[in-house]
């Protein structure tokens, strides 16, 4: 089946934006928690986290997971504190 122009545009965009130092989805998962905390706190990200952000912006699958992650983190709020105290 012929590609649609939309698909062709997607392919060309992916090819044009390809770089040598891309990380994989597994590597992205390792840093996704840190990226989410930076973003939710509105903090400026450092270079190591910027690599994760770049992958999330480029990879549609990690982007979908990241969006759900942000929603989940907003839903649970701040569940950790120091020191450990029973709240029931």
């Amino acid at each position, binding site marked *: 089946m012929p590609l649609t122009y939309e698909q062709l545009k997607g392919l060309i965009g992916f090819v044009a934006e390809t770089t040598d130092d891309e990380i994989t989805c597994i590597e992205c998962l390792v840093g996704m928690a840190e990226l989410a905390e930076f973003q939710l706190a509105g903090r400026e990200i450092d270079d190591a986290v910027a690599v994760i952000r770049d992958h999330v912006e480029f990879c549609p699958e990690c982007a979908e997971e990241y969006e759900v992650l942000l929603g989940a983190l907003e839903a649970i709020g701040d*569940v950790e504190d120091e020191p450990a105290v029973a709240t029931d």
Partner: protein
Amino acid sequence: MTEAHRRNAEQWIDHLRGDSGVRESALTDLRRILLLGLSKALRSRNLDEAFLEDVVQDTLVKILDRLDQFQFRSKFTTWAMTIATREAITELRRLRWKDVSLDDVSDGGRFEPPNPADDDQPEGHAARTELVASLKRLVDGRLTDKQRVAINAELSGMPQEEIARRTDSNRNAIYKLVHDARKKLQTGLREEGYDTREVIQIIA
């Protein structure tokens, strides 16, 4: 429902590695946190509770398995939630694509350019036709069969995880396979005189 005990990251790790009572209590709290997060974040997808409970159960097994991989660079629960999220989305993708074969979406790896009649923009038509011809030459001449199949499947929307499932591979390997294909096409286009930024404008 009682609230979860609050723990910092070190305590989560200690408790999850602790004696059965402490461990069970930490697991119960973590289960509750993950369920809460996933059920709210995925609310619009109308999933049943049993689906989410299974996902969380599988997530807990993975977390216990990977405790030594936690690097204390985020809260423990944030890290745990990334694993839960990937688990949930991966399972949803599996269900969504379960009846679709690789053949259905990859067209045997054939690269068939768009039908020129569908090009509804009169401007730049000749440049697009030329670019598409170059791209086809490169896809046919430089990519492996596996790369062509993976690219076609991806362009049809099949997630890499699902391509991997159908090719006895894994998501990482598919990412690398496609990355290598993208690199070859990028290099090829450069050799044919295309600035990679310029090609985006031609196709825009």
